[in-house]
C-alpha cells in the first residue's frame, strides 16, 4: 500500500460547469422552440444518469453479496459514481412538469376513448406515477447512504464489522433493487408506448445499467491510475475482471435483447410487433442495426481475447464506447415515440452529452474530495491489489 490521498484537479469542476451551462442553455432553447422534444431529451439524460447511479449501486451490492476481492480497489470509485443517486431526486422534478408531453396516457381525453388505456388507468395515472418515482428514488438514496457510510467508516479503523453490516444491507437491497428497477423501467421507458408490454423489459434495462456502471468505473479508474491517484501496486491484472464483467454483461444484454426480439418477431402478434416496427421504420432501421453492431458485435469481437481485457489502452477506448452504446440504447428505447417514421438528431440532442458529462464531472469531484479514492482499510483490499491471473 502506498496510497496517499490527492485532491482531484479543480479544472474538473470548471470544465464540468462549462459543459453543464452549455447543455442547460441548449435545453432551455430547445424548450422554447420545441418543448416536447426538450422533454424527451431530458428524459434521455435522466435515464442515463439513473443507469450510471443505480448500476453503480448494484455493483457495490454485488461485490458484498458474492464476496469478491478483486473489485475492492475499485469500489470507492463505483461509490463515487453512485453519489449521483441523491442528485436524481432533484433532477426528477422537471420530469413531472413534462409528463403531459412525454406520456400519452396522461391525456385524459385519450384514455377516456381507449378501452385498453382505461383498463390500466389504475396503474398509469399521474399521482401513482409520482408516488412510485419517489418510492424508488428514496429507497435508492437510503441504501446509497447506508452502504457508503459503512464503507467510509471503515477507512478510519478498518473494522470488519462494517463489511458484515454491508453484506446484510446488500442482501436486503438485492430484491428491492430488482423490484424498483423494474418499476423504473416500466414507468419511464415502457409506458412511453402505453399499449405495449413486455415481461422482460425490466431485465433489459437492468442489463444496460450494469454495463453503464462498469464502463464508467473502468474509465474513471484508468484515468485516475494514470494520474497517479490510486495505489501504484494496482496492476493490469486487476482490470481483467472489470473487462471480463463488461464483456459478460454485454453478452447478457444481447441475450436479453435477442430473447425479446425473437419472441415478438416469431409470434407476430400485432399488439406487440408495432413497437419493433416503429424501430424499423425509415431511418430507424439504421439505428437498430447500428445498435446491434455498436453495442454488441464490435465490442464482443474486440473484448473476446484474453489480452484485450488487461490492455488498459484498449479498455480506455472500450469503456466510453460502451457508455455511448448505452446512450444509443436509451435513444432507441425513448425516441421512436417522438420521431415516428424516421430517426432524428438535431442541435437539441447535443444537450445530452453536455449535461451528462457536466453533472457527472461536478458530482464526481465534489464526492471524491470528501473521501479516499480507495477503501484504504478494507481488509479485502490487499487481496484485491495482489490479484493475479
Amino acid at each position: 500500500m502506498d496510497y496517499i490521498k490527492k485532491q482531484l484537479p479543480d479544472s474538473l469542476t470548471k470544465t464540468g460547469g462549462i459543459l453543464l451551462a452549455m447543455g442547460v442553455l441548449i435545453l432551455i432553447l430547445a424548450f422554447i422552440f420545441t418543448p416536447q422534444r426538450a422533454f424527451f431529451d431530458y428524459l434521455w439524460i435522466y435515464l442515463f444518469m439513473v443507469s450510471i447511479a443505480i448500476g453503480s449501486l448494484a455493483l457495490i451490492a454485488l461485490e458484498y453479496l458474492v464476496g469478491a476481492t478483486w473489485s475492492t480497489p475499485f469500489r470507492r470509485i463505483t461509490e463515487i459514481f453512485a453519489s449521483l443517486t441523491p442528485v436524481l431526486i432533484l433532477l426528477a422534478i422537471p420530469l413531472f412538469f413534462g409528463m403531459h408531453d412525454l406520456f400519452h396516457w396522461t391525456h385524459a381525453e385519450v384514455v377516456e376513448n381507449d378501452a385498453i388505456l382505461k383498463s390500466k388507468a389504475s396503474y398509469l395515472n399521474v399521482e401513482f406515477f409520482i408516488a412510485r418515482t419517489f418510492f424508488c428514488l428514496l429507497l435508492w438514496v437510503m441504501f446509497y447512504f447506508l452502504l457508503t457510510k459503512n464503507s467510509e467508516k471503515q477507512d478510519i479503523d478498518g473494522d470488519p464489522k462494517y463489511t458484515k453490516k454491508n453484506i446484510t444491507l446488500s442482501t436486503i437491497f438485492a430484491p428491492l433493487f430488482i423490484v424498483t428497477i423494474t418499476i423504473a423501467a416500466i414507468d419511464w421507458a415502457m409506458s412511453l408506448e402505453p399499449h405495449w408490454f413486455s415481461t422482460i423489459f425490466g431485465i433489459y434495462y437492468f442489463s444496460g445499467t450494469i454495463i453503464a456502471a462498469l464502463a464508467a468505473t473502468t474509465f474513471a479508474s484508468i484515468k485516475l491510475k494514470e494520474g497517479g491517484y490510486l495505489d501504484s501496486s494496482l496492476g493490469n491484472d486487476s482490470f481483467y475482471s472489470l473487462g471480463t464483467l463488461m464483456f459478460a454483461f454485454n453478452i447478457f444484454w444481447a441475450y436479453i435483447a435477442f430473447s425479446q426480439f425473437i419472441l415478438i418477431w416469431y409470434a407476430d402478434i400485432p399488439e406487440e410487433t408495432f413497437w419493433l416496427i416503429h424501430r424499423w421504420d425509415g431511418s430507424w432501421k439504421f439505428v437498430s442495426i447500428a445498435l446491434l453492431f455498436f453495442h454488441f458485435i464490435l465490442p464482443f469481437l474486440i473484448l473476446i481475447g484474453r489480452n484485450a481485457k488487461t490492455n488498459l489502452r484498449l479498455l480506455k477506448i472500450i469503456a466510453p464506447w460502451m457508455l455511448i452504446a448505452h446512450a444509443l440504447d436509451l435513444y432507441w428505447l425513448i425516441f421512436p415515440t417522438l420521431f415516428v417514421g424516421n430517426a432524428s438528431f438535431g442541435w437539441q440532442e447535443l444537450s445530452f452529452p453536455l449535461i451528462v458529462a457536466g453533472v457527472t464531472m461536478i458530482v464526481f469531484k465534489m464526492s471524491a474530495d470528501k473521501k479516499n479514492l480507495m477503501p484504504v482499510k478494507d481488509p479485502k483490499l490487499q487481496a484485491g491489489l495482489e490479484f493475479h491471473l
Partner: protein
Amino acid sequence: MSLDATYTRELPLVEGKTSFKEIDDVIAKPTETKPNIKWYIAIGISITALMIGAVCLGLTFWYGVGLWGNNQPVGWAFDIVNFVFWIGIGHAGTLISAILFLFRQKWRTGIARFAEGMTVFAVMTAGIFPAIHTGRPWLDGYLFPYPNQHGLWVNFTSPLLWDVFAVSTYFTVSFVFWFIGLIPDFATLRDRTKSGIKKAIYTIVSLGWRGSNRHWQHYERVYLILAGLSTPLVLSVHTIVSFDFAVSVIPGWHTTIFPPYFVAGAIFSGFGMVSTVLIIVRKVFDMEHIITVNTLEKMNKILLATGSMVGYAYAMEFFIAWYSGNQIEQFTFINRAFGPYAWAYWIMFSCNVFFPQLFWFKKIRRSIPITFVLVLLVNVGMWFERYVIIVTSLTRDYLPSSWGMYFPTMYDFGILIGSFGMFFTLVLLFAKTMPVVAMSELKAVTEGAQPSKKHKH
C-alpha cells in the same frame, strides 16, 4: 496475508488438515472397496423404479402413445414436462463446474465433479422423452438433418429442431468437459489400484496421463475455454427449451420473460437436485468433511437467489398480464391460480417461492435435515412449474368450445418413476466406480498447495 475467513467468505474447503494422500484415500475408497448395505438398498430401489419405467415404456412402444393421458387439447403433457424437468436438473452441474469456475468460487471444487456427472445423467434421462414422444423412436434419425432417400431436410425454423441441436450439443460438451476433468483422476486411480483389470481400464481411460506440466499448461487453458463455452451454452439450452413454448401464440406461453425465467428455474431445480443427492452421498460414503456444511450453505444461498428470481418472473407474468389489457392473457393467469389446476399452481408457488424464503435464516441454511426437506420440495415445485405452464395453458386457450381437461394415466406415472430410476441408477453406479470429487482440483486448493510467494526468475 491470510484473511479472516468469515470476512471474505472463503472458508477452508477441506475441514481439518488433510494430506494429499488422505484425499486420495477418502475419495478413491468407494472405487476400491465393496459398497456397504446402504448402497445396495439404494441401487435396489433405483433399479426397481427403472424397471417400472421400462415396462411402461415397452407397453407404450407396443400399443402406441395412446396409452398416455395426452388428448385434445393437451397434446403435450408428461413427456414434455419430464423433458424440461430433467434438462433443468442438468443446468446446475454446468453452473457449478463452469460459471462458478469462471467466478473463481473455490467452494465449488468439492461438488463440481458430482454435479457435472449429474448433468450428464440428467441430460441422458431428459433425452429419452423427445425420443419416445414421437411414438416411433426407431425413426428418430429423421430429427437430424442428414441426406435421406426422401430428399427432405428438417424444418430449421422450428424451435423443436433448435432443441435437437441444443440438447445434443449440451450433452456432448458436458460429457467432454466431464471427461477432461476426470483424466488426471483416472491416472491417480491407475497408479493406486491393486487389481489388474481395473488397471487395464484406468490405463485406457487415463490416456497415459502423467501430470506433466507441459500438459497442464494446455490443459488448464482448454479447461478455462470450455468453461467459457459452457456458460453461454447452458443459458442457451434452457432458453431454447423456453422458445418451444414462447414463440407460440398460446396465452400463458407467449411472454418475453420466458428465456431468463426458464434459465433461473433450471438452475434452481438443478441445485435442488444436486443438494438432494449430495446430502445422501456424503452420508453414504462418509464424505462429511469434503462436502461440508459450508458448501451446502452456499448452495442454499443460490437456491434462495434463484428461487426469488423465479418468484420475480411469476410476479411479472401476473402483472404484465393485467397491464397488457388483454382479456385472454388475464384469464389465463386467473385460471392458473384459481381454475381447476389451482392445486398444482399453489404447490408450485409454495415450493418454489415461499418455502425457499426460509433460507434467509442462517440456522435453517446450516441445518442438514431442514435443507433436505426444503430441497425435496424444490424438486417437487419445479416439476409442477412445468406441469402448470404446459397443462393449464393448453386445457383452456382462446376457444372455450375446445377447452378440456387432462388426466395422466398409470403409464405416464410409470415412465416418470422410471426416469427417476434411471437417473439414480446412473448416479449410484458413478459414485461407486469413479472419483466423485475432483482429487487433482481439491489438492490444488488445500492450504499450502501453491508456492508461498510469487516466484521470480
